[in-house]
């Protein structure tokens, strides 16, 4: 169910619309933390640049998470295949 969510993002008060308020607020909190970190490290940079860098860092974390997830899926797929093969052998191999 879509509803209005009031947040403060980069010092600006915004009213957003979303289905999961908790997820929206956590995302806003993460963006603000990333923005504040960049502001402290690069005080001479403008707001637009800091916003772009924040977006870039968050995008990179998202990609890393997707790659890790893909690696986990591949690892699980391989291991489950080996397990299945072992069980198949135990089930079908001739008995001594």
């Amino acid at each position: 169910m879509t509803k209005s969510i009031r947040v403060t993002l980069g010092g600006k008060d915004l009213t957003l619309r979303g289905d999961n308020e908790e997820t929206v607020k956590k995302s806003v909190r993460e963006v603000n933390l990333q923005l504040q970190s960049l502001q402290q490290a690069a005080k001479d940079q403008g707001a637009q640049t800091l916003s772009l860098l924040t977006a870039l860092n968050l995008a990179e974390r998202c990609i890393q998470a997707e790659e890790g997830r893909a690696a986990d899926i591949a690892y699980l797929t391989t291991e489950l295949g080996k397990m299945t093969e072992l069980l198949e052998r135990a089930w079908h191999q001739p008995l001594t």
Partner: protein
Amino acid sequence: MRPVNAETTVRKDIKEESQFSPSIQVVEPAPEPAPELMSVVNSLWDAIRNGAEIIVTLRQENTILQTQIDVLRHSEADLQGKIDGFLQRIEELERINAGLSQDHSPAGDNHDGTRLTELEELYTTVVGERDQLREQLQNTHEQLQESKHSLQEKAANSGHVARLIADLEERAQFVEQLQARCTELEKIASANMASPESEKRIADLEEQLKQAQQALLQANNAQLAGLQNGLRSQLDMFGGHVAELAANSAEVTEAVAVRLEQIADEIEKLIELS
């Protein structure tokens, strides 16, 4: 790839547009699975290996049980067949029993009468075979008794022959003693020979003594030859024959002994006279 931070963005010698260009990106190795995921997978591997061993064990036990089940089913089929046979046999016996009961009554039917006749014939046949077997057994027993007696007689004859041979050997020794005695008497006679009449008498006596010895040897040889022939031919018949030979031998030996004693007495008389 580390997150972009302020340090990389504020470097004076690098423009902002080139900060994220491909030239500064580093090719990182393929990401490793999460450690907690690997730990869970390892635990799952342990469970899978144990499960595989259990599967193999269960399959082996299943094979053994299947074999035992097959054996039991086979035995069950055999027992069922035997039970069917027994039931059939019981029914048959009950039918026969019922037929015999009815046959004892005046109202027995022809079928039961026929069955009874067959049973009576069978009984008669069995009794006849039994009598024949008894007769054969009796004959065999008698033959065995005869064989036993024959063996006992043969054993007794063998002992009798052995005793006869020993007796003949003893007589041969006696003859040797007589010969020695004759030789001694000859020496005495030659030493005391005084008259021609005595010499002649001694010569006659010696001649008689030789004849008696020859007769004794011939009799003994005849007895031995008879014994050998009797032993070779038939041991059953040999007992009587040996008994006769023994009797003849005893008579001859006794006669020779008497004659030799007479000769000895005469020689002693001649010696006394001389």
